């Protein structure tokens, strides 16, 4: 049962659970305008959770196993939990811009539940916890996508996302069942021993294959990516921003832990499988993004391409005498962090344009620099960083991934990454060029902007703050990225991996 001492290590999770339940009760009991209260509860909770996260991280940095080996608190989970707390806080401020009172408080509560699932997922040391956490993360997110349920596009997106997500969960459970049948344990660490003792059986590969397929759905890797553009396009923009970064990075964190911990004896096979998937994901994501005219759909394909880059890092394994060395994992942590911030920021600017022109079409970005300089400048930063232009953080992320791919002897994959990044410049830079072009339809856009009801000052300022924080971080981690990388390396070193 629960050891009281273990609870001290999960205070951040308990705080997030507390805010989620408080928001639910608040939504149920009170009436009237509760926007201020929703944002305050969520932000106060996430802030104090982040504080407790750093106070309660084990001083010696060693991994601590909790709850009979179900959960582990280590540098790896702390790295990701910090990112998720930040993302959820940005998302609730973003949501306050988009939603009126009643949907906003539901949005906030569901966001906190999803956040709790992600925080547990990156610390999961057992398949049982991993599965419960992945569902706790995913179920609220399906609802967030369909939150504007009077729009058919939103409901259609939620339905597609839910159907494929549920199918992926079923495949995951099937894979877990195989793994349990082969090894007699659900613990990730003990699974590795069981797999190793069975030698070269095809059934271990079968179990691994099912789990890779399921997690491939969750991170939107080709050929399991089909839901992504539809879900992002149909979702209300704050939900799309959160969905495109939070669950994807959390699933990537679980994937990295699973391949490095539970299926470590099969590292050679994992490298081959993931390298092929990564190459296909990078190529298809980037090529399909070129053809898009809707910015959220384009960001959907772009997020698929970035899944491919991160998978290169997971696939980068160098075989040493001591066994497999997963050299690419710290670069995946780094990339996940900076990818999340720049993609979130791009969605935040897309919303600025959406609010002005009522449109997500790329043509709505025409002349944005003239209408509103700061969002345009921030969007330029995000687009250049997503392309991988120095000195922005996206460049450093790709550089670290390339280095680990080369170290692992995956030269052809590194070349694919560089070539597809050059292709991606086409559609990212198109947005930049459009924004700084002369505005030919200036009167139309201006009148649309005039139609929109004026925002209350605090909310609009808060949204500018979201854009500023993500843009600032994207620039800062490009210049002083070494610090973040050092943290990622320490996180991986102090983990159960």
């Amino acid at each position, binding site marked *: 049962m629960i050891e009281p001492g273990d609870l001290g290590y999960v205070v951040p999770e308990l705080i997030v659970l507390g805010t989620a339940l408080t928001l639910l009760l608040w939504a149920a009991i009170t009436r009237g305008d509760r926007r201020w209260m929703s944002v305050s509860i969520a932000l106060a909770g996430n802030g104090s959770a982040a504080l407790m996260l750093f106070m309660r991280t084990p001083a010696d940095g060693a991994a601590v196993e909790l709850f009979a080996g179900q959960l582990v608190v280590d540098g790896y989970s702390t790295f990701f939990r910090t990112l998720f707390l930040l993302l959820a806080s940005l998302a609730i401020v973003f949501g306050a811009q988009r939603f009126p009172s009643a949907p906003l408080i539901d949005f906030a509560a569901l966001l906190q539940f999803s956040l709790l699932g992600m925080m547990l997922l990156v610390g999961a040391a057992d398949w049982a916890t991993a599965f419960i956490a992945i569902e706790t993360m995913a179920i609220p997110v399906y609802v967030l996508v369909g939150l504007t349920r009077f729009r058919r596009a939103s409901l259609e997106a939620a339905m597609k996302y839910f159907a494929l997500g549920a199918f992926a969960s079923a495949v995951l459970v099937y894979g877990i069942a195989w793994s349990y049948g082969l090894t007699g344990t659900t613990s990730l660490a003990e699974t590795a021993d069981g797999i190793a003792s069975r030698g070269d059986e095809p059934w271990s590969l079968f179990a691994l294959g099912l789990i890779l397929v399921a997690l491939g759905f969750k991170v939107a890797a080709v050929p399991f990516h089909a839901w992504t553009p539809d879900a992002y396009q149909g979702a209300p923009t704050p939900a799309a921003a959160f969905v495109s970064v939070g669950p994807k990075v959390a699933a990537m964190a679980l994937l990295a832990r699973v391949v490095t911990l539970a299926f470590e004896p099969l590292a050679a096979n994992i490298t081959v499988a993931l390298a092929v998937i990564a190459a296909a994901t990078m190529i298809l994501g980037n090529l399909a993004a070129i053809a898009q005219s809707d910015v959220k759909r384009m960001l959907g394909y772009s997020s698929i391409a970035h899944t491919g880059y991160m998978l290169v890092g997971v696939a980068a394994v160098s075989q040493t005498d001591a066994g497999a060395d997963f050299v690419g994992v710290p670069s995946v942590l780094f990339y996940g962090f900076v990818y999340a911030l720049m993609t979130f920021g791009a969605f935040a600017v897309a919303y600025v344009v*959406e609010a002005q022109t009522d449109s997500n079409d790329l043509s709505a970005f025409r002349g944005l620099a003239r209408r509103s300089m700061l969002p345009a400048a921030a969007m330029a930063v995000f687009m250049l960083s997503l392309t991988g232009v120095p000195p922005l953080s996206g460049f450093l992320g790709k550089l670290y991934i390339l280095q680990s791919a080369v170290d692992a002897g995956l030269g052809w994959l590194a070349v694919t990454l560089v070539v597809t990044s050059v292709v991606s410049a086409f559609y990212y830079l198109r947005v930049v060029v459009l924004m700084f072009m002369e505005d030919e339809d200036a009167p139309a856009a201006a009148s649309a902007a005039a139609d929109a009801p004026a925002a209350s000052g605090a909310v609009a300022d808060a949204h500018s703050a979201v854009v500023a924080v993500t843009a600032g971080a994207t620039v800062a981690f490009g210049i002083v990225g070494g610090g973040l990388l050092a943290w990622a390396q320490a996180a991986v070193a102090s983990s159960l991996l």
Partner: protein
Amino acid sequence: MPDNIETHLAFWYLAAASVAASLLMVSVRNPVHSAISLVVVIFHVAGFFAILGSGFLAVAQIAIYAGAIVVLFLFTLMMLDLRHLPEERVTHRQLWLGIPLALLLAVEAVVIGAGTPEVRESIKGAFPPATVSELGGSAEALAVALFNDYTLPFLGASVMLTAATVGAIVLARRIEEHERADFPRQRAQTSAANGADSAAQAEQAAQAAQESPR
């Protein structure tokens, strides 16, 4: 599975009946009859669990699947207007997915069921039959596992169920007039969106901002 005549008889009855009911389920035209056949399948699968010594799983199967899930299916059918079902041309596109899946399950059945004794012996589990009967039964074994090793997922399940309840209410609750009023520019946008392109148009048309961020 105990090796005695009653168990073998039960097994062959369950096998024949569940296969027959499954075939019936996918071949009848009326979806309600299909759902009823599904109940029959579920009951017989519960029978397999029972003769394999997992009484709790058998009860769970009946309570959750035959009870709640099939009710959910029937209520979903009730929301569709079955009198005006479009006359679909019978296509077999699902075979592309169905045949590989069926082959996969067949291979699994052959490996586990008819495989060599070594293969069957090598399938591991934390609760071999001896341990289960020592503890007093499958439900007791589950209780021991749940409240010693898996307490965190047990509590996590309540969080997950809470999130699912809230999600269902948020999505399926009636749309109140004031909710529409909160999004003034969307009131007119109820045009149908079919396919990606028109969905994109509806999206653009319906993407109404409540405030402009200036």
